[in-house]
Protein backbone atom coordinates (compact mmCIF):
# COMPACT_ATOMS: atom_id res chain seq x y z
CA UNK A 1 0.00 0.00 0.00
CA UNK A 2 1.14 3.48 -0.73
CA UNK A 3 2.42 5.57 2.15
CA UNK A 4 1.20 8.81 0.60
CA UNK A 5 -1.57 9.04 -1.92
CA UNK A 6 -2.49 12.30 -3.58
CA UNK A 7 -5.73 12.37 -5.49
CA UNK A 8 -6.95 15.13 -7.80
CA UNK A 9 -5.27 17.83 -5.73
CA UNK A 10 -6.17 21.38 -6.72
CA UNK A 11 -5.02 24.74 -5.50
CA UNK A 12 -6.45 27.90 -6.98
CA UNK A 13 -5.18 31.20 -5.66
CA UNK A 14 -7.77 33.96 -5.92
CA UNK A 15 -6.76 37.24 -7.56
CA UNK A 16 -8.28 40.12 -5.65
CA UNK A 17 -8.69 43.63 -6.91
CA UNK A 18 -10.24 46.93 -5.91
CA UNK A 19 -11.16 48.34 -2.51
CA UNK A 20 -13.70 45.60 -1.90
CA UNK A 21 -11.08 42.93 -2.68
CA UNK A 22 -13.41 41.17 -5.05
CA UNK A 23 -12.11 38.01 -6.63
CA UNK A 24 -11.56 38.79 -10.28
CA UNK A 25 -9.81 35.61 -11.33
CA UNK A 26 -7.87 32.60 -10.21
CA UNK A 27 -4.33 31.36 -10.57
CA UNK A 28 -4.72 27.65 -11.23
CA UNK A 29 -1.43 26.74 -9.63
CA UNK A 30 -2.23 23.06 -9.16
CA UNK A 31 -5.03 21.66 -11.25
CA UNK A 32 -5.78 18.01 -10.55
CA UNK A 33 -2.56 16.29 -9.52
CA UNK A 34 -2.57 12.61 -8.51
CA UNK A 35 0.29 10.32 -7.55
CA UNK A 36 1.39 7.83 -4.92
CA UNK A 37 4.55 7.54 -2.88
CA UNK A 38 5.57 4.11 -1.61
CA UNK A 39 7.50 3.25 1.51
CA UNK A 40 11.24 3.80 1.07
CA UNK A 41 10.84 5.23 -2.41
CA UNK A 42 11.91 8.53 -3.95
CA UNK A 43 9.45 10.17 -6.28
CA UNK A 44 10.91 13.05 -8.27
CA UNK A 45 8.65 15.94 -9.22
CA UNK A 46 10.15 18.07 -11.99
CA UNK A 47 9.00 21.04 -13.96
CA UNK A 48 9.95 24.59 -14.83
CA UNK A 49 9.34 27.58 -12.58
CA UNK A 50 5.69 28.32 -12.11
CA UNK A 51 4.48 24.81 -12.94
CA UNK A 52 3.12 24.33 -9.42
CA UNK A 53 5.56 21.78 -8.05
CA UNK A 54 6.29 23.71 -4.85
CA UNK A 55 2.57 24.35 -4.32
CA UNK A 56 1.97 20.58 -4.53
CA UNK A 57 4.55 19.96 -1.80
CA UNK A 58 3.14 22.63 0.49
CA UNK A 59 -0.49 21.67 -0.13
CA UNK A 60 0.22 18.10 0.97
CA UNK A 61 1.39 19.36 4.36
CA UNK A 62 -1.36 21.99 4.36
CA UNK A 63 1.20 24.76 4.72
CA UNK A 64 -0.99 26.13 1.95
CA UNK A 65 -4.64 25.10 2.26
CA UNK A 66 -5.54 23.20 -0.93
CA UNK A 67 -8.77 24.04 -2.76
CA UNK A 68 -9.89 20.44 -3.21
CA UNK A 69 -8.69 16.87 -3.55
CA UNK A 70 -7.53 14.12 -1.23
CA UNK A 71 -4.21 13.53 0.47
CA UNK A 72 -3.99 10.19 2.26
CA UNK A 73 -0.94 9.67 4.42
CA UNK A 74 -0.52 6.46 6.37
CA UNK A 75 -4.26 5.79 6.10
CA UNK A 76 -5.45 9.25 7.16
CA UNK A 77 -6.97 11.89 4.91
CA UNK A 78 -4.91 14.94 5.84
CA UNK A 79 -7.35 17.43 4.36
CA UNK A 80 -10.06 16.40 6.83
CA UNK A 81 -7.93 16.56 9.98
CA UNK A 82 -8.36 19.06 12.77
CA UNK A 83 -5.42 21.26 13.74
CA UNK A 84 -4.24 19.10 16.61
CA UNK A 85 -4.46 15.85 14.64
CA UNK A 86 -2.63 17.45 11.73
CA UNK A 87 0.13 18.60 14.06
CA UNK A 88 0.64 15.00 15.15
CA UNK A 89 0.78 13.73 11.58
CA UNK A 90 3.37 16.33 10.67
CA UNK A 91 5.79 14.58 13.04
CA UNK A 92 6.09 11.80 10.51
CA UNK A 93 5.73 13.91 7.35
CA UNK A 94 8.44 16.56 7.23
CA UNK A 95 9.77 19.11 4.75
CA UNK A 96 13.17 20.50 3.75
CA UNK A 97 13.06 23.92 2.14
CA UNK A 98 14.94 25.32 -0.82
CA UNK A 99 16.54 28.37 0.67
CA UNK A 100 18.89 27.51 3.52
CA UNK A 101 19.22 31.22 4.26
CA UNK A 102 15.62 32.12 4.99
CA UNK A 103 14.29 28.82 6.33
CA UNK A 104 16.22 28.93 9.61
CA UNK A 105 15.30 31.43 12.33
CA UNK A 106 18.36 33.71 12.66
CA UNK A 107 17.65 34.32 16.35
CA UNK A 108 17.73 30.66 17.34
CA UNK A 109 20.94 28.72 17.70
CA UNK A 110 21.43 25.43 15.92
CA UNK A 111 20.63 23.38 19.02
CA UNK A 112 17.32 25.18 19.46
CA UNK A 113 16.43 24.87 15.79
CA UNK A 114 16.96 21.12 15.74
CA UNK A 115 15.31 20.65 19.13
CA UNK A 116 12.18 22.60 18.25
CA UNK A 117 10.23 19.74 16.64
CA UNK A 118 11.21 17.40 19.49
CA UNK A 119 10.08 19.93 22.09
CA UNK A 120 6.78 20.31 20.26
CA UNK A 121 5.99 16.65 20.17
CA UNK A 122 7.77 14.83 22.99
CA UNK A 123 8.37 15.44 26.64
CA UNK A 124 11.99 14.66 27.36
CA UNK A 125 14.54 15.97 29.81
CA UNK A 126 17.10 18.64 28.96
CA UNK A 127 20.03 16.25 28.97
CA UNK A 128 18.18 13.73 26.81
CA UNK A 129 17.36 16.53 24.42
CA UNK A 130 21.00 17.56 24.24
CA UNK A 131 22.05 14.02 23.46
CA UNK A 132 19.36 13.67 20.83
CA UNK A 133 20.40 16.94 19.13
CA UNK A 134 24.06 15.96 19.25
CA UNK A 135 23.21 12.59 17.73
CA UNK A 136 21.21 14.23 14.92
CA UNK A 137 23.99 16.71 14.20
CA UNK A 138 26.50 13.90 13.89
CA UNK A 139 24.17 12.02 11.58
CA UNK A 140 24.03 14.89 9.11
CA UNK A 141 27.76 15.58 9.31
CA UNK A 142 27.83 18.58 11.66
CA UNK A 143 29.98 18.92 14.75
CA UNK A 144 27.88 18.75 17.94
CA UNK A 145 30.25 21.31 19.51
CA UNK A 146 28.68 23.86 17.15
CA UNK A 147 25.29 23.45 18.83
CA UNK A 148 25.29 26.92 20.32
CA UNK A 149 26.23 28.69 17.11
CA UNK A 150 23.77 30.67 15.01
CA UNK A 151 22.75 30.02 11.38
CA UNK A 152 24.72 32.95 9.95
CA UNK A 153 27.95 31.31 11.09
CA UNK A 154 27.38 28.40 8.71
CA UNK A 155 27.83 28.02 4.96
CA UNK A 156 24.92 27.23 2.63
CA UNK A 157 25.64 23.50 2.58
CA UNK A 158 25.93 23.32 6.36
CA UNK A 159 22.68 25.23 6.76
CA UNK A 160 20.97 22.74 4.53
CA UNK A 161 22.33 20.01 6.83
CA UNK A 162 20.76 21.82 9.79
CA UNK A 163 17.45 21.84 7.91
CA UNK A 164 17.81 18.11 7.26
CA UNK A 165 18.60 17.39 10.92
CA UNK A 166 15.49 19.35 11.93
CA UNK A 167 13.36 17.38 9.48
CA UNK A 168 14.70 14.06 10.80
CA UNK A 169 14.39 14.93 14.49
CA UNK A 170 11.16 12.96 14.97
CA UNK A 171 12.04 9.94 12.84
CA UNK A 172 9.62 10.77 10.04
CA UNK A 173 8.30 8.26 7.52
CA UNK A 174 8.46 10.67 4.61
CA UNK A 175 10.18 13.95 3.79
CA UNK A 176 9.15 16.46 1.15
CA UNK A 177 12.39 17.87 -0.25
CA UNK A 178 11.59 21.16 -1.98
CA UNK A 179 14.58 22.03 -4.20
CA UNK A 180 16.98 21.09 -1.40
CA UNK A 181 20.17 21.62 -3.41
CA UNK A 182 19.39 24.26 -6.02
CA UNK A 183 20.86 27.11 -3.96
CA UNK A 184 24.17 25.26 -3.52
CA UNK A 185 27.42 25.06 -5.50
CA UNK A 186 27.98 21.85 -7.44
CA UNK A 187 30.57 20.35 -5.10
CA UNK A 188 28.28 21.04 -2.13
CA UNK A 189 25.26 19.69 -4.02
CA UNK A 190 27.00 16.33 -4.25
CA UNK A 191 27.63 16.33 -0.49
CA UNK A 192 23.96 16.99 0.31
CA UNK A 193 22.63 14.50 -2.24
CA UNK A 194 24.90 11.79 -0.89
CA UNK A 195 23.73 12.60 2.62
CA UNK A 196 20.07 12.36 1.61
CA UNK A 197 20.66 9.02 -0.12
CA UNK A 198 22.56 7.64 2.85
CA UNK A 199 19.88 8.72 5.36
CA UNK A 200 17.20 7.19 3.19
CA UNK A 201 18.95 3.83 3.28
CA UNK A 202 19.52 3.95 7.03
CA UNK A 203 16.03 5.10 7.99
CA UNK A 204 13.97 3.67 5.12
CA UNK A 205 12.64 7.14 4.35
CA UNK A 206 10.35 8.09 1.49
CA UNK A 207 11.17 11.29 -0.37
CA UNK A 208 9.04 13.49 -2.54
CA UNK A 209 11.93 15.21 -4.31
CA UNK A 210 10.86 18.46 -5.95
CA UNK A 211 13.42 20.04 -8.29
CA UNK A 212 13.90 21.70 -11.64
CA UNK A 213 17.27 20.07 -12.37
CA UNK A 214 16.55 16.93 -14.38
CA UNK A 215 20.00 15.41 -13.88
CA UNK A 216 19.70 15.58 -10.11
CA UNK A 217 16.15 14.24 -10.13
CA UNK A 218 17.19 11.33 -12.32
CA UNK A 219 20.07 10.60 -10.03
CA UNK A 220 18.08 10.40 -6.81
CA UNK A 221 14.62 9.18 -7.89
CA UNK A 222 13.05 5.77 -8.38
CA UNK A 223 10.09 7.25 -10.25
CA UNK A 224 9.69 10.68 -11.80
CA UNK A 225 6.63 12.85 -12.46
CA UNK A 226 6.84 15.75 -14.91
CA UNK A 227 4.61 18.76 -14.31
CA UNK A 228 3.49 21.45 -16.73
CA UNK A 229 1.13 24.29 -15.82
CA UNK A 230 -0.31 22.69 -12.71
CA UNK A 231 -0.73 19.18 -14.05
CA UNK A 232 1.33 16.02 -14.24
CA UNK A 233 1.87 15.24 -17.92
CA UNK A 234 3.99 12.12 -17.54
CA UNK A 235 4.96 9.71 -14.77
CA UNK A 236 7.19 6.64 -15.03
CA UNK A 237 10.17 4.91 -13.44
CA UNK A 238 13.30 7.01 -13.81
CA UNK A 239 14.81 4.66 -16.36
CA UNK A 240 11.70 4.42 -18.49
CA UNK A 241 11.08 8.18 -18.38
CA UNK A 242 14.60 9.17 -19.36
CA UNK A 243 15.08 6.48 -21.99
CA UNK A 244 11.62 6.45 -23.43
CA UNK A 245 9.93 9.81 -22.84
CA UNK A 246 6.50 9.85 -24.51
CA UNK A 247 5.10 13.32 -23.87
CA UNK A 248 6.41 16.00 -26.27
CA UNK A 249 7.05 18.28 -23.29
CA UNK A 250 9.16 15.67 -21.50
CA UNK A 251 11.04 15.07 -24.74
CA UNK A 252 11.77 18.78 -25.17
CA UNK A 253 12.71 19.19 -21.53
CA UNK A 254 15.14 16.27 -21.63
CA UNK A 255 16.67 17.37 -24.90
CA UNK A 256 17.30 20.84 -23.44
CA UNK A 257 19.45 19.55 -20.58
CA UNK A 258 23.09 20.24 -21.46
CA UNK A 259 25.15 17.05 -21.32
CA UNK A 260 28.55 17.47 -19.66
CA UNK A 261 30.37 15.58 -22.40
CA UNK A 262 31.80 17.52 -25.35
CA UNK A 263 31.93 14.37 -27.48
CA UNK A 264 28.15 14.07 -27.49
CA UNK A 265 26.21 16.36 -29.80
CA UNK A 266 22.58 16.05 -28.97
CA UNK A 267 19.78 17.35 -31.12
CA UNK A 268 17.73 19.81 -29.13
CA UNK A 269 14.02 20.30 -29.46
CA UNK A 270 13.69 24.06 -29.08
CA UNK A 271 10.30 25.04 -27.73
CA UNK A 272 8.88 28.33 -28.92
CA UNK A 273 7.98 31.04 -26.45
CA UNK A 274 7.38 30.94 -22.72
CA UNK A 275 5.16 28.97 -20.37
CA UNK A 276 1.64 30.47 -20.60
CA UNK A 277 0.11 32.15 -17.56
CA UNK A 278 -1.70 29.84 -15.13
CA UNK A 279 -4.34 32.57 -14.73
CA UNK A 280 -5.70 31.79 -18.12
CA UNK A 281 -4.28 28.41 -19.12
CA UNK A 282 -4.77 27.33 -22.74
CA UNK A 283 -7.85 25.24 -23.53
CA UNK A 284 -7.60 21.50 -24.07
CA UNK A 285 -4.06 20.28 -23.51
CA UNK A 286 -2.25 23.10 -21.69
CA UNK A 287 0.92 22.39 -23.66
CA UNK A 288 -0.67 22.72 -27.12
CA UNK A 289 0.49 26.32 -27.61
CA UNK A 290 4.15 25.25 -27.58
CA UNK A 291 3.86 21.65 -28.73
CA UNK A 292 5.78 20.83 -31.92
CA UNK A 293 3.41 17.90 -32.64
CA UNK A 294 0.02 19.41 -31.86
CA UNK A 295 -3.08 18.24 -33.66
CA UNK A 296 -6.46 19.83 -34.03
CA UNK A 297 -7.97 17.93 -31.10
CA UNK A 298 -5.29 19.22 -28.68
CA UNK A 299 -6.79 22.69 -28.35
CA UNK A 300 -10.30 21.31 -27.88
CA UNK A 301 -10.07 18.39 -25.50
CA UNK A 302 -8.10 17.81 -22.39
CA UNK A 303 -6.07 14.60 -22.74
CA UNK A 304 -6.63 11.80 -20.20
CA UNK A 305 -3.79 10.73 -17.94
CA UNK A 306 -3.53 7.06 -18.86
CA UNK A 307 -1.32 4.05 -18.26
CA UNK A 308 0.38 3.00 -21.47
CA UNK A 309 1.97 -0.07 -19.88
CA UNK A 310 4.79 -0.82 -17.47
CA UNK A 311 3.48 1.80 -15.02
CA UNK A 312 4.19 4.55 -17.52
CA UNK A 313 1.50 7.25 -17.38
CA UNK A 314 1.06 9.97 -20.01
CA UNK A 315 -1.49 12.70 -20.68
CA UNK A 316 -1.29 13.26 -24.43
CA UNK A 317 -3.60 12.86 -27.41
CA UNK A 318 -0.80 11.36 -29.49
CA UNK A 319 -0.84 8.17 -27.41
Amino acid sequence: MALLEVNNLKKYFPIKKGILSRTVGQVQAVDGVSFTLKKGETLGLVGESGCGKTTVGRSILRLIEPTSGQVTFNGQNLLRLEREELRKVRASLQIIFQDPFSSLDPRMNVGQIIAEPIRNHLKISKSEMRNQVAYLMERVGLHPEQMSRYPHEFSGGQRQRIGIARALALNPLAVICDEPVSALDVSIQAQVINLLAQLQEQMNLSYLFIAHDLSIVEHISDRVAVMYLGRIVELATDRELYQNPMHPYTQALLSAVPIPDPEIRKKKILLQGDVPSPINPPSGCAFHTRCPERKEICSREEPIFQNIGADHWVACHLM
Partner: protein
Amino acid sequence: MSEPATPLLEIKDLHTRFHTLDGTVNAVDGVDFDVYQGETLGLVGESGCGKSVTALSILQLLRCPPAEIQGRILFEGNNLLDLDREGIRKIRGNEISMIFQEPMTSLNPVLRIGEQIAEAAKIHKRMTRQEAWRWAVEMLRMVQIPGPGSRSKQYPHKFSGGMRQRAMIAMALSCNPRLILADEPSTALDVTIQAQIMSLMQKLKEEFNSAIVLITHDLGIIAEMVSRVVVMYAGKVVEEAPVKELFKDPRHPYTQGLLGSIPVIGRKEQTGRRLQEIPGIVPSPMETPLGCRFHPRCHKVMNRCQEQEPPMIHLAEHRRVSCLLEA
Protein backbone atom coordinates in the same frame (compact mmCIF):
# COMPACT_ATOMS: atom_id res chain seq x y z
CA MET B 1 40.15 25.58 -36.13
CA SER B 2 43.46 27.33 -36.53
CA GLU B 3 43.72 30.39 -34.37
CA PRO B 4 45.34 33.63 -35.45
CA ALA B 5 48.68 34.24 -33.80
CA THR B 6 47.80 37.35 -31.79
CA PRO B 7 45.04 37.09 -29.24
CA LEU B 8 42.19 39.57 -29.20
CA LEU B 9 42.40 39.83 -25.43
CA GLU B 10 45.40 39.03 -23.28
CA ILE B 11 45.11 39.09 -19.53
CA LYS B 12 48.44 39.11 -17.77
CA ASP B 13 48.94 38.73 -14.05
CA LEU B 14 45.64 40.35 -13.13
CA HIS B 15 45.16 41.17 -9.46
CA THR B 16 41.93 42.63 -8.19
CA ARG B 17 41.79 43.50 -4.51
CA PHE B 18 39.07 45.02 -2.41
CA HIS B 19 40.18 47.12 0.52
CA THR B 20 37.50 46.67 3.15
CA LEU B 21 37.24 47.58 6.80
CA ASP B 22 37.89 43.95 7.71
CA GLY B 23 41.05 43.77 5.63
CA THR B 24 42.10 43.26 2.04
CA VAL B 25 40.29 40.70 -0.08
CA ASN B 26 42.31 39.25 -2.93
CA ALA B 27 39.39 38.31 -5.17
CA VAL B 28 41.53 37.79 -8.29
CA ASP B 29 45.10 36.87 -7.54
CA GLY B 30 47.38 36.62 -10.55
CA VAL B 31 45.12 35.44 -13.34
CA ASP B 32 46.23 35.18 -16.94
CA PHE B 33 44.59 33.86 -20.09
CA ASP B 34 44.08 34.75 -23.76
CA VAL B 35 40.99 35.03 -25.91
CA TYR B 36 41.19 34.74 -29.70
CA GLN B 37 38.90 36.26 -32.25
CA GLY B 38 35.77 34.24 -32.94
CA GLU B 39 36.30 31.71 -30.18
CA THR B 40 34.23 30.93 -27.11
CA LEU B 41 36.28 30.58 -23.99
CA GLY B 42 34.74 29.09 -20.86
CA LEU B 43 35.59 30.40 -17.41
CA VAL B 44 34.53 27.84 -14.80
CA GLY B 45 34.49 27.66 -11.04
CA GLU B 46 32.19 27.76 -8.05
CA SER B 47 30.83 30.91 -6.47
CA GLY B 48 33.50 33.05 -4.89
CA CYS B 49 36.34 31.86 -7.10
CA GLY B 50 36.73 35.23 -8.83
CA LYS B 51 35.22 34.63 -12.27
CA SER B 52 32.78 37.53 -12.19
CA VAL B 53 35.33 39.90 -10.69
CA THR B 54 37.68 39.01 -13.54
CA ALA B 55 35.03 40.02 -16.09
CA LEU B 56 34.16 43.20 -14.20
CA SER B 57 37.86 44.08 -14.01
CA ILE B 58 38.24 43.81 -17.77
CA LEU B 59 35.62 46.50 -18.31
CA GLN B 60 36.58 48.32 -15.12
CA LEU B 61 33.06 48.16 -13.82
CA LEU B 62 34.29 48.10 -10.24
CA ARG B 63 34.39 51.18 -8.09
CA CYS B 64 38.02 52.01 -7.28
CA PRO B 65 38.50 52.31 -4.33
CA PRO B 66 37.53 50.01 -2.62
CA ALA B 67 38.69 47.94 -5.57
CA GLU B 68 42.22 48.05 -6.92
CA ILE B 69 43.06 46.47 -10.26
CA GLN B 70 46.64 45.65 -11.20
CA GLY B 71 48.27 43.81 -14.06
CA ARG B 72 47.75 44.12 -17.79
CA ILE B 73 44.59 43.67 -19.83
CA LEU B 74 45.65 43.93 -23.46
CA PHE B 75 42.82 44.37 -25.93
CA GLU B 76 44.15 44.32 -29.49
CA GLY B 77 47.52 45.18 -28.01
CA ASN B 78 46.43 48.17 -25.90
CA ASN B 79 46.40 47.98 -22.14
CA LEU B 80 42.87 48.82 -21.01
CA LEU B 81 44.17 49.64 -17.55
CA ASP B 82 46.17 52.58 -19.01
CA LEU B 83 43.05 54.21 -20.44
CA ASP B 84 41.33 57.12 -18.76
CA ARG B 85 37.58 57.22 -18.05
CA GLU B 86 36.76 58.54 -21.49
CA GLY B 87 38.96 55.94 -23.15
CA ILE B 88 37.35 52.98 -21.43
CA ARG B 89 33.89 54.38 -22.17
CA LYS B 90 34.68 54.18 -25.87
CA ILE B 91 35.43 50.48 -25.47
CA ARG B 92 32.56 49.56 -23.16
CA GLY B 93 29.43 48.48 -24.98
CA ASN B 94 31.17 49.16 -28.26
CA GLU B 95 34.22 46.91 -28.67
CA ILE B 96 33.60 44.83 -25.54
CA SER B 97 30.16 44.33 -24.07
CA MET B 98 28.78 42.41 -21.19
CA ILE B 99 25.74 40.23 -20.55
CA PHE B 100 24.88 40.03 -16.87
CA GLN B 101 23.53 37.13 -14.91
CA GLU B 102 20.38 38.68 -13.51
CA PRO B 103 18.03 39.74 -16.29
CA MET B 104 15.63 40.89 -13.57
CA THR B 105 17.91 43.48 -12.03
CA SER B 106 20.28 44.51 -14.79
CA LEU B 107 17.73 46.36 -16.92
CA ASN B 108 16.61 49.82 -15.92
CA PRO B 109 12.96 49.47 -14.81
CA VAL B 110 12.00 53.06 -15.67
CA LEU B 111 13.31 53.15 -19.24
CA ARG B 112 11.59 51.59 -22.23
CA ILE B 113 13.39 48.53 -23.60
CA GLY B 114 13.98 50.23 -26.96
CA GLU B 115 15.59 53.21 -25.30
CA GLN B 116 18.00 51.03 -23.36
CA ILE B 117 19.11 49.22 -26.48
CA ALA B 118 19.32 52.43 -28.51
CA GLU B 119 21.54 54.11 -25.92
CA ALA B 120 24.75 52.42 -27.00
CA ALA B 121 24.07 53.02 -30.69
CA LYS B 122 23.42 56.71 -30.02
CA ILE B 123 26.65 57.12 -28.10
CA HIS B 124 29.03 54.93 -30.06
CA LYS B 125 27.60 55.02 -33.58
CA ARG B 126 26.47 58.66 -33.36
CA MET B 127 23.02 57.76 -34.60
CA THR B 128 20.11 60.16 -34.23
CA ARG B 129 17.27 59.32 -31.88
CA GLN B 130 15.08 57.89 -34.64
CA GLU B 131 17.89 55.96 -36.29
CA ALA B 132 18.93 54.46 -32.98
CA TRP B 133 15.35 53.49 -32.14
CA ARG B 134 14.92 51.82 -35.52
CA TRP B 135 18.19 50.03 -34.89
CA ALA B 136 16.94 48.87 -31.50
CA VAL B 137 13.80 47.39 -33.07
CA GLU B 138 15.98 45.64 -35.61
CA MET B 139 18.11 44.18 -32.80
CA LEU B 140 15.00 42.95 -30.98
CA ARG B 141 13.89 41.26 -34.18
CA MET B 142 17.29 39.62 -34.46
CA VAL B 143 17.07 38.13 -30.98
CA GLN B 144 13.69 36.74 -32.02
CA ILE B 145 11.36 38.78 -29.87
CA PRO B 146 7.91 38.58 -31.44
CA GLY B 147 6.37 41.95 -32.32
CA PRO B 148 9.61 43.93 -31.86
CA GLY B 149 7.99 47.24 -32.84
CA SER B 150 5.46 47.27 -30.01
CA ARG B 151 7.73 45.43 -27.58
CA SER B 152 10.43 48.10 -27.89
CA LYS B 153 8.01 50.63 -26.38
CA GLN B 154 7.38 48.50 -23.30
CA TYR B 155 9.09 48.60 -19.92
CA PRO B 156 11.14 45.65 -18.60
CA HIS B 157 8.43 44.44 -16.18
CA LYS B 158 6.30 43.43 -19.16
CA PHE B 159 9.01 41.03 -20.30
CA SER B 160 9.45 37.46 -19.07
CA GLY B 161 12.85 36.29 -17.80
CA GLY B 162 13.79 34.75 -21.14
CA MET B 163 12.72 37.86 -23.05
CA ARG B 164 14.69 40.14 -20.73
CA GLN B 165 17.77 38.04 -21.31
CA ARG B 166 17.16 38.35 -25.07
CA ALA B 167 16.87 42.11 -24.63
CA MET B 168 20.16 42.06 -22.74
CA ILE B 169 21.76 40.16 -25.59
CA ALA B 170 20.31 42.65 -28.09
CA MET B 171 21.84 45.44 -26.03
CA ALA B 172 25.20 43.71 -25.81
CA LEU B 173 25.29 43.09 -29.56
CA SER B 174 23.91 46.44 -30.67
CA CYS B 175 27.32 47.88 -31.54
CA ASN B 176 28.68 44.72 -33.05
CA PRO B 177 31.34 44.12 -30.37
CA ARG B 178 34.53 42.15 -30.93
CA LEU B 179 34.25 40.55 -27.50
CA ILE B 180 31.27 39.65 -25.32
CA LEU B 181 31.67 38.86 -21.65
CA ALA B 182 28.70 36.68 -20.71
CA ASP B 183 28.44 36.23 -16.95
CA GLU B 184 26.15 33.25 -16.23
CA PRO B 185 23.78 34.36 -19.00
CA SER B 186 21.34 31.50 -18.51
CA THR B 187 21.65 30.54 -14.86
CA ALA B 188 18.47 32.29 -13.79
CA LEU B 189 16.44 30.67 -16.58
CA ASP B 190 14.54 27.40 -16.97
CA VAL B 191 16.16 24.71 -19.10
CA THR B 192 13.92 25.09 -22.14
CA ILE B 193 14.50 28.87 -22.13
CA GLN B 194 18.21 28.32 -21.46
CA ALA B 195 18.39 26.15 -24.57
CA GLN B 196 16.75 28.93 -26.62
CA ILE B 197 19.18 31.56 -25.30
CA MET B 198 22.26 29.39 -25.83
CA SER B 199 21.36 28.48 -29.39
CA LEU B 200 20.66 32.16 -30.08
CA MET B 201 24.05 33.23 -28.68
CA GLN B 202 25.79 30.59 -30.75
CA LYS B 203 24.04 31.74 -33.92
CA LEU B 204 24.69 35.44 -33.36
CA LYS B 205 28.31 34.84 -32.46
CA GLU B 206 28.86 33.09 -35.77
CA GLU B 207 27.09 35.86 -37.64
CA PHE B 208 29.18 38.63 -36.08
CA ASN B 209 32.39 36.64 -35.61
CA SER B 210 32.66 37.95 -32.06
CA ALA B 211 34.59 36.23 -29.33
CA ILE B 212 32.77 35.20 -26.16
CA VAL B 213 34.06 34.69 -22.65
CA LEU B 214 31.38 32.49 -21.12
CA ILE B 215 31.40 32.48 -17.35
CA THR B 216 29.45 29.65 -15.77
CA HIS B 217 29.50 26.94 -13.16
CA ASP B 218 27.42 24.64 -15.37
CA LEU B 219 29.73 22.07 -16.92
CA GLY B 220 26.97 20.93 -19.26
CA ILE B 221 26.88 24.36 -20.90
CA ILE B 222 30.67 24.40 -21.04
CA ALA B 223 30.70 21.06 -22.87
CA GLU B 224 28.19 22.30 -25.42
CA MET B 225 29.27 25.87 -26.01
CA VAL B 226 32.99 26.45 -25.64
CA SER B 227 36.18 25.36 -27.36
CA ARG B 228 38.60 26.03 -24.52
CA VAL B 229 38.21 26.15 -20.75
CA VAL B 230 39.95 28.01 -17.94
CA VAL B 231 39.20 26.61 -14.47
CA MET B 232 39.50 28.98 -11.53
CA TYR B 233 39.68 28.29 -7.83
CA ALA B 234 39.95 30.84 -5.02
CA GLY B 235 41.12 33.67 -7.29
CA LYS B 236 43.65 31.68 -9.31
CA VAL B 237 43.69 29.73 -12.55
CA VAL B 238 44.22 26.06 -11.69
CA GLU B 239 43.86 24.50 -15.13
CA GLU B 240 43.39 25.34 -18.79
CA ALA B 241 42.60 22.93 -21.61
CA PRO B 242 40.74 22.52 -24.88
CA VAL B 243 37.25 21.41 -23.91
CA LYS B 244 37.50 17.80 -25.05
CA GLU B 245 40.78 17.27 -23.26
CA LEU B 246 39.47 18.79 -20.08
CA PHE B 247 36.57 16.35 -19.93
CA LYS B 248 38.65 13.37 -21.05
CA ASP B 249 41.74 13.99 -18.99
CA PRO B 250 41.25 16.53 -16.20
CA ARG B 251 44.61 16.97 -14.47
CA HIS B 252 43.88 19.14 -11.46
CA PRO B 253 42.18 17.38 -8.54
CA TYR B 254 39.72 20.29 -8.33
CA THR B 255 38.68 19.84 -11.96
CA GLN B 256 38.41 16.10 -11.38
CA GLY B 257 36.25 16.77 -8.34
CA LEU B 258 33.98 19.17 -10.21
CA LEU B 259 33.46 16.71 -13.03
CA GLY B 260 32.82 13.85 -10.61
CA SER B 261 30.36 15.72 -8.45
CA ILE B 262 27.73 16.37 -11.12
CA PRO B 263 25.08 13.75 -11.81
CA VAL B 264 24.88 12.80 -15.49
CA ILE B 265 21.62 11.43 -16.89
CA GLY B 266 21.90 7.74 -17.73
CA ARG B 267 25.11 7.18 -15.80
CA LYS B 268 23.59 6.03 -12.51
CA GLU B 269 23.81 2.35 -13.47
CA GLN B 270 27.58 2.54 -13.95
CA THR B 271 28.57 4.90 -11.18
CA GLY B 272 26.06 3.99 -8.50
CA ARG B 273 24.06 6.40 -6.43
CA ARG B 274 26.99 7.93 -4.62
CA LEU B 275 28.38 11.07 -6.22
CA GLN B 276 31.99 12.01 -5.84
CA GLU B 277 32.26 14.75 -3.25
CA ILE B 278 34.69 17.58 -2.77
CA PRO B 279 34.77 17.83 1.03
CA GLY B 280 34.59 21.21 2.74
CA ILE B 281 33.84 24.56 1.12
CA VAL B 282 35.56 27.24 -0.98
CA PRO B 283 37.78 29.19 1.46
CA SER B 284 36.88 32.77 2.25
CA PRO B 285 39.15 35.16 0.29
CA MET B 286 40.09 36.75 3.63
CA GLU B 287 41.73 33.56 4.82
CA THR B 288 43.14 31.73 1.82
CA PRO B 289 45.09 28.61 2.86
CA LEU B 290 48.88 28.63 2.59
CA GLY B 291 50.58 26.62 -0.12
CA CYS B 292 48.12 25.28 -2.67
CA ARG B 293 44.74 26.91 -2.03
CA PHE B 294 42.93 23.69 -2.75
CA HIS B 295 44.94 21.52 -0.38
CA PRO B 296 42.43 21.40 2.52
CA ARG B 297 39.82 19.88 0.17
CA CYS B 298 42.12 17.83 -2.05
CA HIS B 299 41.97 14.03 -1.89
CA LYS B 300 45.51 13.73 -3.26
CA VAL B 301 47.07 16.20 -0.84
CA MET B 302 50.79 15.76 -0.04
CA ASN B 303 52.87 17.30 2.74
CA ARG B 304 54.48 19.92 0.53
CA CYS B 305 51.09 21.13 -0.77
CA GLN B 306 50.61 22.79 2.60
CA GLU B 307 53.69 24.97 2.31
CA GLN B 308 54.63 25.33 -1.31
CA GLU B 309 52.54 27.25 -3.79
CA PRO B 310 52.24 25.11 -6.92
CA PRO B 311 53.85 26.53 -10.07
CA MET B 312 51.92 26.76 -13.33
CA ILE B 313 53.07 23.86 -15.47
CA HIS B 314 52.67 24.24 -19.22
CA LEU B 315 52.04 20.85 -20.79
CA ALA B 316 51.25 22.06 -24.30
CA GLU B 317 49.81 25.10 -25.99
CA HIS B 318 46.69 26.10 -24.06
CA ARG B 319 47.19 23.15 -21.76
CA ARG B 320 48.42 24.05 -18.31
CA VAL B 321 47.81 22.98 -14.76
CA SER B 322 48.87 24.36 -11.41
CA CYS B 323 49.44 21.35 -9.20
CA LEU B 324 52.47 19.92 -7.42
CA LEU B 325 51.50 16.43 -8.60
CA GLU B 326 52.58 17.50 -12.07
CA ALA B 327 55.80 19.17 -10.97
